């Protein structure tokens, strides 16, 4: 009984309960026939949300006003440039990955430079930088659709023992991030800054260094997600990142991370990412129209957030 209560007091549990419930309802509709297929699809698509969500989680944990709105543009630019460099050749995969990560590094540095040097609030800084990044992507893409190298396409679309490879990659990243958040000095510092930036500074936390590293980390994870997504979907598209703007924030909030900063939660990101994908596929399965789908998605997200926040107050 006590163990059960402990599990229920975890902030991430609601995201998983919601995801499980939606999964069950969807599978019921098809009489259980789609269990494996739906599970694999959910894991695959959730993986991309998880990777960007983990970066956004750190940024949001920095405290009120901190959010990275340049994630979609960063994904697009990283994917576009990487595919261009690789020119569908397997031998260039490593170079392509470096280019993608380099884009993330550059975007992160630029974002924090705007925030720090020009004293622009992070929301405005990352939004305006995302216009520049997106324009660069448009300019370099020029309507070309380059196919990813075959090895990358195989890697991202195939499974190992029934588990999609991208889910394994995302799981590996999650473990690293979990250790970073819960065990490392950097994780402590991020959490301290999010609770009270001034107090953290006076306690000796290198506030600028930590915030800078966080914006870079977020952008690098976004660029990696873009690279994998383009490989998975057979090429980069200019709108490929669009849906991840809201998704990256929603998975953080639903996952149990404090919107006001100072407290982050890694497992919840997985629950929330699975949940968001499954809600859409459930509504699709039941044949809901696009309008109804959007409406219900919104209502369901609000419901989960309310349920989760009420638990935390109690």
């Amino acid at each position, binding site marked *: 009984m006590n163990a059960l209560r402990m599990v229920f007091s975890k902030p991430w549990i609601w995201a998983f309960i919601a995801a499980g419930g939606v999964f069950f309802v969807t599978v019921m509709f098809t009489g259980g026939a789609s269990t494996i297929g739906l599970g694999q699809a959910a894991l695959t698509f959730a993986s991309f949300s998880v990777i960007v969500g983990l970066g956004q989680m750190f940024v949001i944990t920095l405290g009120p006003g901190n959010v990275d709105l340049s994630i979609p543009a960063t994904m697009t630019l990283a994917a576009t440039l990487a595919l261009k460099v690789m020119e569908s050749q397997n031998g260039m995969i490593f170079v392509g990955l470096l280019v993608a990560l380099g884009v993330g590094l550059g975007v992160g540095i630029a974002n924090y430079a705007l925030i720090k040097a020009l004293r622009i609030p992070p929301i405005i800084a990352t939004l305006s930088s995302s216009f520049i990044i997106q324009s660069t992507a448009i300019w370099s893409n020029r309507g070309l659709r380059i196919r990813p190298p075959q090895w990358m396409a195989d890697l991202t679309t195939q499974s190992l023992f029934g588990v999609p490879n991208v889910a394994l990659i995302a799981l590996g990243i999650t473990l690293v991030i979990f*250790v970073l958040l819960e*065990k*490392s*000095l*950097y994780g*402590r*510092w991020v*959490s*301290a800054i999010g*609770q*009270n930036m*001034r*107090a*953290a*500074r*006076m*306690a*000796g*936390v*290198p*506030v*600028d*260094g930590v915030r*800078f590293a966080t914006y870079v980390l977020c952008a690098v994870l976004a660029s990696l997600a873009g690279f994998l997504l383009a490989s998975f979907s057979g090429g980069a598209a200019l709108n490929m990142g669009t849906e991840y703007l809201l998704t990256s924030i929603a998975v953080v909030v639903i996952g149990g991370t*404090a919107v006001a900063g*100072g*407290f982050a939660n890694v497992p919840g990101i997985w629950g929330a990412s699975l949940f968001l994908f499954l809600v859409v596929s459930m509504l699709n399965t039941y044949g809901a129209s696009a309008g109804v789908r959007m409406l219900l998605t919104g209502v369901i997200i609000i419901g989960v957030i309310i349920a989760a926040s009420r638990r935390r107050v109690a």
Partner: protein
Amino acid sequence: MISGDETAVIAVDGAEKSFGAVRALDGVSFSVRPHECVGLVGHNGAGKSTLVNLITGGLAPDSGSVLVSGMAEGEKFSIAGARAHGVRCVFQELSLCPNLTVEENTRITHPALKGLGWRRRARALIAGKLDAIFPGHGIDCTRMIGDLSIAERQMVEIATAFSESDTRVRLVILDEPTSSLDAGLAAQLLGYVRKFVSEGGAVVIISHILGEILSTADRVVVMKDGRVVSERRAAEFTVETLVGAMGSVVRARDARAPSAAAGEIVLTRKAPAGSGGIDFVARRGELVGLAGLGGHGQTRMLVGLFNAGGGDWVSPKDPRIAFVAGDRHVDGNLPLWSILRNMTISLLPDLTRRGLVDTRAEAEIAARWRERIEVRTKDMANPILSLSGGNQQKVLFARALATRAPVVLMDDPMRGVDIGTKQEVYAMLREEAAKGRTFVWYSTEMDEICQCDRVYVFREGRIVAELAGAEVSEERILSASFAEAAA
């Protein structure tokens, strides 16, 4: 006992209140009559704040009763009810909205100020009261609270409590009202309290400065462990007997020779050219005091010294400066965290191997400091905000002292700390200074300044006097603080 008196403004009878396993009040009877100022003293955690919360309607007693004169039979006592019957309170934790101006804050406590021109009327109300209590205060009532110094905020808070619009103020509770005020402002306030009482008002004053209580109050109530342990006319107490009643012993101030063998210089700050101020210098092993009236540039100097130490981008390998916050909600507490994590944040770099924090070593160090400074908690994993204010402050002390930093800056850190704890901290500072640590200590309390080896007196943002050793005395400091104003 006076508690049965018919005319009491407020009468608490046999009140009991528990928070979980903690018995905050254990059968307290307490009353205040018009024309009376009652001093309420006791250690941190003696139950004073809980009693105040009963009187202001913020809490209901588990058993016993709270009666305000003029209250109808069976009327439910609440915060609004207490206010309607003229009970006001100045809280120790300042309660003004920092994003609003002084006049807007006045409007919040005075719903009667409505309709066109409320700003003007609010300003007149609050400015009039400020003038009455603190003549020559110099506070512009159109400024935001957040832009005021902590002393000015406290002045506004006090003036707000005494100001009247629709209801008459009959009882004002002052919880540590002078903790951020310098001697001059404190004297003005206490003078006003006597005037208010002589005109028929009632005041409850809570303070750790016992001289204040004895000089201002008619009657003193001593609390300990949730009970009233002593209640007498103020004239029958001396500081020694009062401290004895609270259960701790006044230790004689250690007579100290000025540290003649001055160590190497560890910290300097030049006075701005042309300001006519004195340069600041701190040597190894010194206790340097920053004195003067509150808000005359001492905190700005400390923050300047801290920021000059660097560490914005990369945590230095050997920490140079640690800081003990005074305004703990703004500069100190990390409110979501446990006591343990709040205590260890500054020394984490020393406990980190390959980027990961050694939590076992962390817990060991925290346990050691918990014992050394006697943090009152069952479990260091409890949230920091579960501690009383004085204990939170102890944790912030431990945070700074546990580091290897050779210089510790202290921004009036003893606000709301009881006298027993203060003595312990003084002893600890001496001990650390003897080991070669340097302390720069801003304090609004003369006792603390007199603990220092050398004192810089501030006036209008610069250092105007330097006193060392035997020169450090209340008279010298006051005369330096006021020199020009008097001339």
